[in-house]
């Protein structure tokens, strides 16, 4: 009896730390980043990462290792405690929601009836934390970047939440695992709610600060924006956060709109991987297609088109169900 409990707890710990937990997620996010870089490179007619590992697959890992070995500078005028703390918090806030995503089977590592709300909450904490990080580093460029970040948040946060909520109306649940289960028996949600799917992708791009919405970082305008003062280990954590966020965004789209790890009646991690690859393909394609918006243009677009369309989607869902 005791042995059984011990075994179970060991398995639970292994699940938490190895597969599909902590370590797996980090390395998986490395893979996703590599995939993204490789795809963007392909779209732009180049090779992309090439040297570290076969086809450059270890390049993101090598980048992080390199950053970890670099000198870590804290600017004199920066507020030290929040400046050192924010990268760590960013990392944990990006990693935690990934535990709620069903990867192996239809049920995630951590599930409870309202986990989608927690995921959305943690996700919207990330720009706030980034804003704080920008503010405490007191650089001119990072201040402008932080302001842009906050403005951008006002633009995309509302349509994003609306777009993520509309599946819950159809499925009558706030649990991601339940939504995945629902899609097993029915159509995939992106077929039912195409507008919500499109808005979710656009807003997630804005959330990820990727082209065409990378105004807070805007290398040619702001020299890297809000993360300009971060270096060494802190920058490594932030970069890791970015790839984790990309994984999270792709996983959210997969679980909420593409049916998670399930296809017809089977559910297997491989299906999940394939769907993630499709998502990353979409993200990479959109990154290659556009120039950068200006922040005012984005805000106008978000309030003029995205929010009304998201509300329309919710209204349609309500009427249809």
């Amino acid at each position, binding site marked *: 009896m005791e042995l059984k409990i011990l075994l179970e707890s060991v398995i639970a710990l292994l699940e938490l730390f190895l597969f599909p937990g902590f370590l797996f997620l980090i390395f998986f996010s490395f893979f996703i980043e590599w995939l993204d870089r490789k795809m963007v490179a*392909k779209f732009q*007619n180049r*090779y992309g990462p090439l040297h570290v590992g076969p086809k450059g697959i270890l390049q993101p890992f090598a980048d992080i290792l390199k950053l970890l070995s670099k000198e870590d500078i804290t600017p004199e005028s920066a507020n030290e405690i929040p400046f050192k703390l924010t990268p760590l918090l960013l990392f944990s806030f990006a990693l935690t929601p990934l535990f709620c995503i069903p990867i192996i089977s239809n049920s995630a590592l951590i599930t409870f009836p309202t986990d989608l709300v927690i995921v959305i909450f943690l996700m919207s904490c990330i720009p706030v934390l980034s804003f704080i990080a920008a503010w405490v580093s007191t650089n001119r460029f990072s201040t402008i970047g932080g302001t842009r970040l906050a403005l951008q948040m006002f633009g995309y946060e509302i349509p994003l939440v609306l777009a993520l909520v509309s599946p819950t109306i159809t499925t009558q649940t706030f649990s991601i695992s339940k939504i995945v289960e629902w899609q097993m028996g029915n159509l995939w949600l992106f077929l039912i709610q195409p507008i919500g799917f499109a808005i979710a992708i656009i807003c997630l791009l804005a959330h990820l600060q990727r082209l065409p919405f990378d105004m807070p970082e805007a290398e040619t305008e702001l020299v890297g924006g809000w993360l300009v003062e971060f270096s060494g280990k802190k920058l490594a954590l932030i970069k890791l956060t970015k790839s984790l966020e990309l994984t999270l965004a792709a996983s959210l789209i997969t679980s909420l709109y593409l049916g998670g790890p399930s296809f017809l009646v089977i559910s297997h991690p491989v299906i999940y991987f394939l769907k993630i690859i499709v998502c990353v393909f979409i993200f990479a*394609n959109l990154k290659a297609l556009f120039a950068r918006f200006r922040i005012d243009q984005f805000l106008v677009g978000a309030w003029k088109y995205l929010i009304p369309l998201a509300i329309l989607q919710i209204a349609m869902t309500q009427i249809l169900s």
Partner: protein
Amino acid sequence: MTIIKEVISNFLKKPVTLRFPYEKMQPVENSRGQPTWKIERCMGCNLCVNVCPSQAIELRGKGRESEIIYYQSKCLFCGECIDVCPTNAIHSISEYKTVFPEKDKMKKEYSRSKQNREIK
């Protein structure tokens, strides 16, 4: 939209860039490369030293006994010395990679006894 078509079609194509350390770009046949001396033909006339716009060539000694010292780091690869040489002792080689991490290797000495020896 033109760009979507372009982007998707490029996704399926082979990249145009080179995988550098494995594949190298080939210089064209008549590219203006690094000047190289055939010292046995040189008669020490000093013309190439005078014409060089960047003082990359040094002549030691006189006439048939002379030595040529060529500073690759100063060279513009303009080829004026090749054009001016009356005995065709200088010719250019097609080689893109002409930079070395060591400063010594950026200097070449052509002496009569041991030809084309790189000094340390």
